[in-house]
Structure formats: structure tokens, C-alpha cells
């Protein structure tokens, strides 16, 4: 560091980051000479909380690890629990899980496309791709009842079935999206300013990618041919045909190409699932207490490999739940990619791994040690605060609660 160097804090609060993380950049003019990452601003104590609650409660908690890949985490967790319990999940349930998983991938990749556009100052792309994302969000809402946090899983199967009326609607939406995706592929390959801003930026060679343990589209854009869906198949991925998209660009442009092409593969998978949907029950009955045992479950989330390890001790609560979100594996990669690059490339390089810091930071207690007790709310306090807040705006459940004897009132 010479005397012309200076430090720029990117985060914990910064327009380029949608979630609080801190990157401290040492700059030499417009160039980044080094960077340190500080994670952990988002810890919510989910792993500890999982040990204190029952499996079915944990499923809903795990779903809230991340808003975007909620189905990924929930499915990954539930697979491990089902493996320990030795449950034979009906085929139809597995197909529905796969369908929701691919719809989630579509929504996540479209979301990424918009964010990437925004990071390079191309807001039109953001507006367009997020408008199209509404199509898939509507489909998810129709299938599961929710736009995010679908809660379609349950131990031993899924909670909601697909009816015959749903299928043509999904197919129609997929047709629309496929047409739009083709348009984005055309934009990505023809628009000069996009190519100028993306190519050659955030280089990650094949060897570095393997060495640093990159996952997901970040790895595949460096030519690393890894996809858990194919290598370690789960749900019904063994029954569907799809290509694992890899790219040799090794830069942000490659990552964009991989993601838009993966969208096309997802449409293919969704069509196959709907064409071959088997009949039968959608869930088997699961025991409340899961026998002692351990299992490791892997899942290809939109951002990369998601890993859940569950250890059961024979009670209705797990002994240990470990979550390894894909972003944690990619953070090291970001530091490597940013070295000696321009400051202007920082947002898109960080965005290119599709970071999800709420996934990455999930542990630790509800109290914030930095702020002391003044800002800390206990659960009952928070509960009554929310009831009071809604009462002020004219929504009062207290009468109703008395009738149903809801605890805490």
C-alpha cells in the first residue's frame, strides 16, 4: 500500500448490495488492489433454533433461510429427514417438487438478470426481466398459494396437488417465458454496451475455480462441469433429460450466458415433468419422531450446490442441522475475481455470483450484541408490538383470539 492508496467501504449499507455485508476495498486510483470481506451481519440463529423445534416446524423455518431459494433449502432439508426416517416418497410428490424447483430456478435467474442489468446501469433490462418474472411468480402462487416461501413440501411428500386445469396454464406461461428468454439471449449477444461491460470482467480460470471451490453457474461459466442435479440426482431428476450448461468465457459474460441458457433447460424440464406426471398419492404418513441417524443431502439451488446435514436422535427434534448455502462457497471466489479490477466492475462481479447473504448468514441468536438491550425485543414483546401496530390500523384479532383461545393473548 503506497500513499496514493485509499480504502473504500462497500457496505454494510450500500446501494450495490441488497443485503448487509461489508467489503473493504483498498483502491489504487480506479483499481482495486485488495479486498477484505466481513460477513455475518445477517445472522438469525436458524441452525440453533432448528435444534429447539420439531421437524415439521423446522421445515418452515429452514424455508426462511432465503427468500429466493426457499424451496431449495426446504427440499434439501426434507430429503435428509426422509432419508433418516426411511420414507418412500411417492413419485408424484417428487415430480411436483421438481416442478416447483425448476419454476423457482426460472424466477431466480430472471431476478438475477434484472439485478445484473441494474448493476451495470442498464435499468431497462431490470424493468423488462422483472416484469416477465411476474409470469412465473403468478404460476407459483397458483400452484402453491405463495409467491415466495411456497411451503409446498411436507415430510413424506408435498402438501398440494396439481390439478388438470393447472397444466395448460403452466404450459402457456412457459411458452411466453421461452419467447422472452430468447429475446434476452439476443440482447445479451448483440447489445454492445452489455458485452463491453461484461466480457473480460471478473475472470475466474478453470483451475482457480476448482481450487477455490466455486459452485453453481459461477463454476459452470468457467468450464467446470458440475451439477448436482446430474451428478447426485435427487427428486425426479433421474427421469428427465436436460443438458448441463457450461461456458468457456470464464467471465461475468459467461455467467450471464450460462444463466439464460439454463432458463431454456428449465423450460425443457418443466415440459417433461408435466407430460409424464405420474398418478398416485402425493404424500405418505411420516412419524412424528424420527429415528436416530444422520444424512447428508445435496441440492442444486439456482445459485449452486446447497448442502444440508441432519442428525437425528430419536426424538421429534433434530440433534443438529447444518446448512451450507451456495454463496458461502463463492465468497472466496469474489475476492479473487476483484483483485486488480476496476471499481466500476465491483458491483457486477459481486452480483455475478448471485450472492444471497441471508442464506450465507443464518446462525446465531436473536439479540444483537452490538446494540445492547435497548433495541432488543423479546419474542412476546415483538408479538404484542405487532398486534398493537395492526390494531392501530384497524385490524383487530383480539375478539377472534378469545374465541379460539390463542396463547399469548
Amino acid at each position, binding site marked *: 500500500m503506497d500513499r496514493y492508496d*485509499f*480504502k*473504500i*467501504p462497500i457496505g454494510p449499507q*450500500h*446501494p*450495490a448490495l441488497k443485503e448487509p455485508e461489508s467489503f473493504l476495498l483498498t*483502491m489504487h486510483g*480506479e483499481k482495486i488492489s485488495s479486498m477484505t470481506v466481513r460477513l455475518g451481519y445477517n445472522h438469525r440463529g436458524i441452525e440453533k433454533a432448528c435444534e429447539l423445534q420439531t421437524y415439521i416446524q423446522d421445515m418452515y423455518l429452514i424455508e426462511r433461510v432465503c427468500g429466493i431459494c426457499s424451496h431449495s433449502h426446504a427440499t434439501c432439508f426434507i430429503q435428509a429427514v426422509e432419508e433418516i426416517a426411511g420414507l418412500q416418497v411417492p413419485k408424484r410428490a417428487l415430480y411436483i417438487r421438481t416442478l416447483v424447483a425448476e419454476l423457482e430456478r426460472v424466477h431466480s435467474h430472471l431476478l438475477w438478470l434484472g439485478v445484473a*442489468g*441494474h*448493476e*451495470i*446501469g*442498464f*435499468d*431497462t*433490462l431490470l*424493468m*423488462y426481466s422483472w*416484469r416477465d418474472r411476474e409470469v412465473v411468480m403468478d404460476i407459483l402462487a397458483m400452484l402453491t398459494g405463495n409467491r415466495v416461501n411456497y411451503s409446498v413440501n411436507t415430510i413424506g411428500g408435498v402438501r398440494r396437488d396439481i390439478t388438470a386445469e393447472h397444466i395448460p396454464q403452466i404450459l402457456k406461461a412457459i411458452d411466453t417465458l421461452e419467447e422472452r428468454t430468447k429475446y434476452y439471449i439476443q440482447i445479451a449477444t448483440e*447489445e*454492445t*454496451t*452489455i458485452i*463491453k*461491460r461484461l466480457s473480460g470482467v471478473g475472470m475466474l480460470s478453470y483451475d482457480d475455480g476448482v481450487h477455490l471451490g466455486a459452485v453453481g453457474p459461477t463454476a459452470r461459466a468457467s468450464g467446470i462441469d458440475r451439477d448436482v442435479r446430474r451428478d447426485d440426482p435427487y427428486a425426479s431428476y433421474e427421469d428427465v433429460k436436460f443438458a448441463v450448461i457450461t461456458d468457456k468465457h470464464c467471465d461475468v459474460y459467461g455467467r450471464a450466458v450460462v444463466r439464460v441458457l439454463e432458463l431454456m433447460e428449465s423450460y425443457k424440464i418443466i415440459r417433461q415433468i408435466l407430460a409424464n406426471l405420474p398418478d398416485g398419492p402425493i404424500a405418505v404418513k411420516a412419524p412424528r419422531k424420527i429415528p436416530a441417524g444422520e444424512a447428508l443431502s445435496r441440492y442444486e439451488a439456482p445459485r449452486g450446490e446447497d448442502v444440508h446435514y441432519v442428525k437425528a436422535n430419536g426424538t421429534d427434534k433434530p440433534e443438529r442441522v447444518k446448512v451450507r448455502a451456495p454463496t458461502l462457497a463463492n465468497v472466496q471466489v469474489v475476492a479473487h475475481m476483484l483483485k486488480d479490477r*476496476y*471499481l*466500476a*466492475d*465491483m*458491483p457486477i462481479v459481486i452480483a455475478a455470483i448471485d450472492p444471497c447473504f441471508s442464506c450465507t448468514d443464518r446462525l446465531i441468536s436473536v439479540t444483537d450484541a452490538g446494540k445492547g438491550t435497548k433495541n432488543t425485543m423479546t419474542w412476546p414483546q415483538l408479538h404484542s408490538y405487532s398486534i398493537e401496530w395492526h390494531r392501530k390500523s384497524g385490524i383487530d384479532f383480539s375478539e377472534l383470539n378469545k374465541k379460539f383461545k390463542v396463547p399469548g393473548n
Partner: protein
Amino acid sequence: MINVFFNILIFPGLIFLSIFGLGAEYFDRKLCAKLQNRVGPPWFQPLADFIKLLAKENVIPNQADPTVFTLMPVLAFTATLTAFFYIPLWQTKALSSFNGDLIVVLYLLTIPTLTFFLGGWYARSVFSMIGAARSIIQLFAYEIPLFLAILAPAMMAGTLSLSEMTVFYGSHPWLVLLNLVDFVIALVALLGKLEKTPFDIPEAETEIVAGCLTEYSGRLLAFFRIAIDMEMVVGSSLLAAVFLPFGFNFGFAIGFILYLVKVLFVVALLSLARTIVARLRIDQMINFCWKIVAPAAFLMLVVDLVVKGLISR
């Protein structure tokens, strides 16, 4: 005397320019929204933003130089207003004119960028200092092409007075076609001057928050914001007067409407540009301006010289 005050303060001076600036901002935002398939703001949004900012607290950072910090928004505001008086709007005669007012207008339009630089630099925050450095680097990239692109038509007309230029092109309308390339160059330079995408590098929000304006708030920010709006109108009026010099002889009513249409046309071109491209990096912007735009402007200057020689023969 009252007439002069009326002209300076109300029409076509301060009040008109402010309102037109806010209107142009609305037009720009609404058009952009429509192009991006959004609803866009209601018509009073820019004014509401302005009033809201006026009501907010002024925060001056401890480490900032308070004099420079507070002076800069006012300077930006007055410089753009002054430049407006030398531009012919709906008649061939501007409010005030002399031979050489073209140079004055161009220099007055440089002042807002300098105020961004000084204001950002003296705010002493990393983000605003990087923004300041970037805006001054960018200034050197677009200023030369802009000067050359406006100098070429002036040379053709044989005058450095904007008012006399409109008179000249009024009598030689076909020569305007020759300036079309210069018009495009001037538009590109104006995008840089107004710091709009793809040249919004000094205020790239995903990198350096708001660049030079990061530390500004309240009234000072309001003045900067309205100065930028006014700069957009003045810059567009300049381009309209130089490159679209027709319709000056139809009297006030039609001339005035024509003027509004011309300015909004230029603003529309600017918003179109910012919806269809991504932001460039500062090095790419410099390369683009020096390797493509500036040589093109030089070439047009030579072409104009040759054509002028042929005509006068």
C-alpha cells in the same frame, strides 16, 4: 428597467426556466418509464421532490469545507441561468447577444460540472471524491467534441454569435443537413455533460452511491437537482438553436410552441439513449470519446471548411 427584471426573473428567466426544467425532468422520467414498460411518476413529481428537499434539514459534513460546500449549488444554479439568456429561443434574437456569446454559453455550461467537482471534492468523503475525480476526467473527454461540434456550424455561418447563426441558417436552410453528424456528436457530449446513462459514471449509484452529491442533502441538494434540470433544458435549447434553426419567423405563439417541441425532442433523444444502453466504465468512456467522437468532430470541421470554401467561390 422593469422589463429587464421581468425578463431575468420571470420570463424567460428564472421562473420559466425552473418550471420548464421540472417539466423536462417529468417528460424525461415519464418517457423513460414508458419505454421501460413502467407507469412512471405523476406530473407534479419533480416539483414535489423539489419541495420535499427544501423542507429537509441541511447537513454539512464535519470534515467538509462549509463555504465551498454551500456555495457550489448556488453557483451551478446561476451559471446555467446566465447561459440561458444568450440562446435564441423562439426568435432569431436572444435576450442578449454579442459576437462571441457562443463561447460564453459553452463556458457557462462547463461551470456546473466544475461545481460538482469542487462540491464533491470538498465534501471529503471517499464516494464523493471518487465521483469528483470521475466527473472531471469525464469533462475532458466530452468537452472537446462538444466545442468542435458546435464550432463547425458556427464557422459555416461565419459568426460566433448564436443569434446571428440562427439568422444565417434561416436564409440557408439546406446547410443544416450538413450538421446532422455534428448534432449526433453534440448529443453524445450532452449525455456526458448531464451525466446520464451511458455516461452516468460520476454518479454510478451501484458503485459510488451518488458520486459528488453523496454528502448533499436538503436545500443544497434541491438546488443541485434543479440546476441539473435547468442544465438539461439549456443544453437542449443550445442544441435546438444550433442544429434545428427553423421556425423563428412565425411570431411568438407558434415560435414558442415550436421551441418547446424542439427542446422536448432533444430531451426525448436523451432519454431514448439512456433506456437502450448500459453504463460504460470510465476508461471505456474516455476511449470512446477520444477515439471515435473527437476524430469525427474534427472530420466534420474539415468537411465544413471545404463546403464553405466551395460555396463562397
